[in-house]
């Protein structure tokens, strides 16, 4: 297990270093932040002073060397926009996104597993058809469009939910609801497919022959064995929300990591961009590790 984690850490570490180097140089080639942060009539002296202060005057390679040296000492640089340590800014945003991901994925997992298992129990029945229909639509719906339609219905026409920001429980309803749809559709399909194949296996037939109740066949005998492919998809979708809720966060003005990413790139806040990449890479790494642990827990035959 230890060597397994070690190998994983090396692979992730290498890719992280490669990405940081690429992003560091590419981001500085895109332009000078001076024009964005100083007034349009700033004098040349002010501009020079600004560049001097943030070290944009030195050759790129020197800037990179300085960044790496700071990094080694645990200093991720300062945010240009908010004038405080970049890592503080990122962790604050990450906490919001983490909550969003956790709440959404818990709801999705429960709903998809319960509905998917029940649908698989009577393949071709009315319940199965309805569940399949909605899961297909859900898996096909683009989140930005669902977000917009939800705003029109619930905020513009019915005036029941706020459209953006945070502050009350109601602010979470639309973002969570919109993020819920696609993973729900995808996971439901996997649960259903996996459950169908498990329910036709020999040990389920034996349990049925012994007269075990339907409910306990589904949730005791079937579920644990049907969960392996489901876990993979749950992990993928959770990772997608942790890092890719860009669209939903932007539409709903949610102060998460996706919105921070977009804003920081637009305003050339380089230190924050790099810190976002590092934090999300770490999140993905831990996420994948948890998934592998879940595999081992569910199926004792799996050993690392």
């Amino acid at each position, binding site marked *: 297990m230890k060597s397994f984690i070690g190998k994983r850490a090396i692979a992730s570490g290498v890719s992280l270093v490669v990405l940081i180097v690429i992003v560091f140089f590419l981001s500085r080639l895109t332009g000078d932040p001076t024009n964005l942060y100083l007034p349009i009539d700033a004098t040349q002296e002010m501009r020079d002073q600004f560049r001097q202060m943030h070290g944009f005057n030195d050759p790129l390679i020197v800037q990179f060397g300085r960044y790496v040296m700071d990094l080694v000492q645990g200093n991720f640089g300062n945010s240009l926009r908010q004038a405080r340590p970049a890592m503080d800014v990122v962790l604050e945003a990450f906490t919001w996104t983490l909550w969003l991901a956790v709440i959404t994925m818990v709801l999705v997992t429960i709903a998809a597993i319960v509905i998917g298992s029940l649908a698989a129990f009577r393949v071709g029945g009315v319940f199965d058809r309805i569940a399949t229909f909605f899961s297909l639509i859900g898996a096909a719906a683009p989140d930005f469009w669902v977000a917009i*339609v939800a705003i*029109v219905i619930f905020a513009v026409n019915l005036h029941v939910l706020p459209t953006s920001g945070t502050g009350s429980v109601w602010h979470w309803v639309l973002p969570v609801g919109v993020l819920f749809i696609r993973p729900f559709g995808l996971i439901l399909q996997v649960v259903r497919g996996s459950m169908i194949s498990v329910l036709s296996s020999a040990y389920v037939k034996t349990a049925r022959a012994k007269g075990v109740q339907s409910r306990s066949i589904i949730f005791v005998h079937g579920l644990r064995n049907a969960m392996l492919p489901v876990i993979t998809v749950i992990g993928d979708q959770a990772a997608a929300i942790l890092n890719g809720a860009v669209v939903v966060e932007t539409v709903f003005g949610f102060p998460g990591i996706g919105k921070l990413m977009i804003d920081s790139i637009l305003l050339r806040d380089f230190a924050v961009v790099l810190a976002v990449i590092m934090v999300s890479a770490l999140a993905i790494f831990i996420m994948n590790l948890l998934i592998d642990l879940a595999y081992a827990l569910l199926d004792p035959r799996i050993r690392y």
Partner: protein
Amino acid sequence: MTDTQILAERKKSNGPIARWFAMLWADKFAFFAALFLLIVVLCALFGPLLLDAVATKQNLRGRNAPPFDITRGWLYILGADALGRPLLARVVVAAQNTMLVAAAAVLASSIVGTALGLIAGYSRASAAQWIMRLGDVIMSFPSLLLAVIVLYMLEPSVANIVLVLAITRIPIYLRTTRAEVLEVRERMFVQAAKVMGASHWRIVFCHILPVIFPTLVTIATLDFAFVMLAESSLSFLGIGIQAPEITWGLMVAQGRPYLTNAWWLSFWPGLAIILTTLSLNLLSNWLRIALDPTQRWRLEMGGRKHG
């Protein structure tokens, strides 16, 4: 038993095209999905030729004209956008860019991914290890985040979007191909070909590739939907295709400021995205059965269970 008789009769009289058509007809959902996709492809091919002038012609008197009103002509059946351009024509014309980007990205990533996967699965050289590590590196970052970074830093042009989307999708094909090759490589017919002195090229392209091809086609169909959604999201965020070019995702974004008084601006292109994605998913489900010789009978028997 009548099913078997019908099956036998059909096989006698029909060629391969008719047989495929019958299998498609057996699954009504897949049939209508294929029909819809055919219409979308025709729109993508010929739409801009026929409707480009109409789709860009401004008509300020018809600003945000409501849908289902044909007094202005049938082109305005879905309403008009903020500059009075007919939405139906614009949705048809936008199909071209949407399809073009997705098709190019899927084609590029599937060819590169499959080629690398064949090498990684078939050769025992250390190159194979490097290819897999490369796949891991790409996989360990979420595609949308990567796309956002790259497209902000480079110019958001069609070529760059295709490039970014293609790179992020390579590992899917790479991993599937490699896993399949590892299994097929050990089968008897490959051993036989080896014994008879077939070259590596011949074994890979004439014996292994045809066996794994159906799986790849199914994945590519599903992936097409994913890439289309990704492109739409990028265009929606403003870092994908840039105006005056249009895609469905961009049209949704352009309609956003008018949400309160003209919902149809964003609604129709979004619906086009959903229907296309849905059709691709349904068709992929059908392909998985139709291309699998051990499952195909479900469709050839009439496929009542799939209706």
